[in-house]
């Protein structure tokens, strides 16, 4: 209890890490709901890995003498962001174009991209003679060491993402649910798809840098899965998923701090705990409803 109070104090040493992981937990599921609904869950696996490969590539280039932004810590972060955004953006473009063409096996393409991204990440790390340890830290995500400036930048960007996701929910829903209907209503499916993919790219790129590929995948997919059985409409789906993600991040932070465990994996385990609870509760609720309906049947 005393440790919980310590964490909640305004002067808590790791307060940026606490609030940062909470922001990630609340916002990522807002984007992740569309991964689930559009049946693009595998994108959630592949894109963080691609983003990690982008970070590794940027650092490798720097190590090989392409030191365009070398030097201070902030510049290294910028380098990582550029690598992450470029790789993620190009991959989304490739996947989206292939999806629209509708040829080939979608899962196969994503699987191949994932394997390539993973292999490339390892190779880029191996080729990077300088700063391997620091880069591995970035790849795993270093939210505990997040600086004041990075925290505020993250807050601004993820805040904007949350606003866009809520404000344009109708449009994203329409083009995801019934593309033909969207066209007959005069809506440009391409424009809304591009906006959604841009948001996905931004979320994944920044998320991977902040919490690492494993955690970003966990936050994108697991809270929406936990929320889906209880959702009654898009708004409730987004809100429940977001609350579940935020609670997982905060719960994960508490467990990580008190038990001295790595934050990311603990947060993902807590989210999976919520998922298991959600499924169990849903099964119990369905059984209870079935029993009630059975007892309410008139006697023949």
């Amino acid at each position, binding site marked *: 209890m005393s440790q919980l109070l310590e964490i909640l104090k305004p002067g808590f040493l790791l307060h940026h890490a606490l609030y940062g992981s909470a922001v990630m937990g609340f916002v990522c599921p807002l984007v992740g709901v569309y991964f*689930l*609904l559009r*049946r693009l869950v595998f994108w959630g696996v592949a894109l963080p890995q691609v983003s990690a490969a982008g970070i590794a590539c940027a650092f490798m280039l720097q190590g090989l003498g392409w030191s365009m932004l070398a030097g201070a810590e902030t510049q290294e972060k910028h380098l990582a962001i550029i690598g992450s955004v470029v790789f993620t953006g190009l991959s989304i473009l490739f996947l989206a174009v292939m999806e629209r063409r509708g040829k080939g096996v979608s899962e196969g393409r994503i699987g191949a991209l994932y394997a390539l991204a993973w292999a490339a990440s390892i190779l880029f790390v191996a080729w990077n003679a300088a700063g391997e340890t620091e880069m591995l830290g970035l790849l795993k995500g270093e939210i505990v060491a997040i600086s004041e400036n990075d925290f505020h930048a993250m807050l601004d960007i993820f805040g904007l993402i949350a606003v866009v996701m809520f*404000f344009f929910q*109708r*449009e994203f*829903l*329409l083009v995801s*649910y*019934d593309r*033909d*209907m969207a*066209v*007959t*209503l*005069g*809506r440009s499916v391409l424009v809304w798809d591009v906006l959604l993919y841009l948001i996905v790219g931004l979320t994944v790129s920044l998320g991977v840098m902040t919490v690492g590929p494993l955690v970003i995948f966990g936050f994108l997919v697991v809270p929406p899965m936990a929320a*889906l059985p209880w*959702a*009654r*409409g*898009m708004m*409730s*789906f987004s809100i429940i998923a977001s609350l579940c993600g935020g609670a997982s991040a905060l719960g994960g932070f508490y467990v990580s701090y008190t038990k001295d465990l790595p934050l990311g994996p603990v947060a993902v385990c807590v989210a999976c705990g919520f998922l298991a609870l959600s499924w169990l509760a849903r099964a119990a609720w369905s059984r209870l409803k079935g029993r009630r309906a059975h007892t309410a049947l008139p006697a023949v």
Partner: protein
Amino acid sequence: MKEPLIKFKHACLGYGGNPVLTGVDFEIQPQSFVGILGHNGSGKTTLLKTLLGLIPCMKGQFTSHGANLGLPRYGYVPQKERLDPIYPLSAHDVVAMGTYRKLEFFPRLRGKDGRGLIEHCLAACGASHLGQKAYSDLSGGQKQRVLIARALATEPEILALDEPLAGIDITTQKALLKLLKQFKEQRHLTILMVSHRIQAEKGLFTHIVWCDEGQVVMGPVDEMLSHGRLSEIFKAEL
């Protein structure tokens, strides 16, 4: 004769450079009830998708204009199986999509969402009681009513339905056809309905568009359904 709503002249329709229907030549007048008929794979859906602007006309002329000389407002009813049941939407949410024509910033900020129109459309389709139910839990006939309500919520000039009676029992089919007839008469809608059979609905159609072997022929319903005419065009038997 009124100005046609839709006009094809020597048109060629298809996907990705592959023609499916050639020599398409017909006009659709306002307030007609047109059955787009043909066997599976005959190009009915290609024709409907071109009409709706989902795919471009490959060659020839295709013009359509509504009351204000702009594009006509379509109320589209897709095949109900096409909509993914994973979405956690109520019937009300599905009908609400019909009101998403405009990107209205301020009404949205004020929380105005066309609730009255949605409820009116659900009531017109006899689906008021379904509003709060999960769309994915509805029966085939109930889903079709909700999709027609969604199409009405677009305040259409043309109602375009893709196989609305497929997989629905005969009693519900009759009820849905009665509903469509009522909309045509009361709201003066033009209705285009794709079907691969004509038993239940032939009494409603004013015109029939036949698609077969890459060709399209249109005519008044009596003429098109006469045995001799059908044999002549498609060597088919009713």
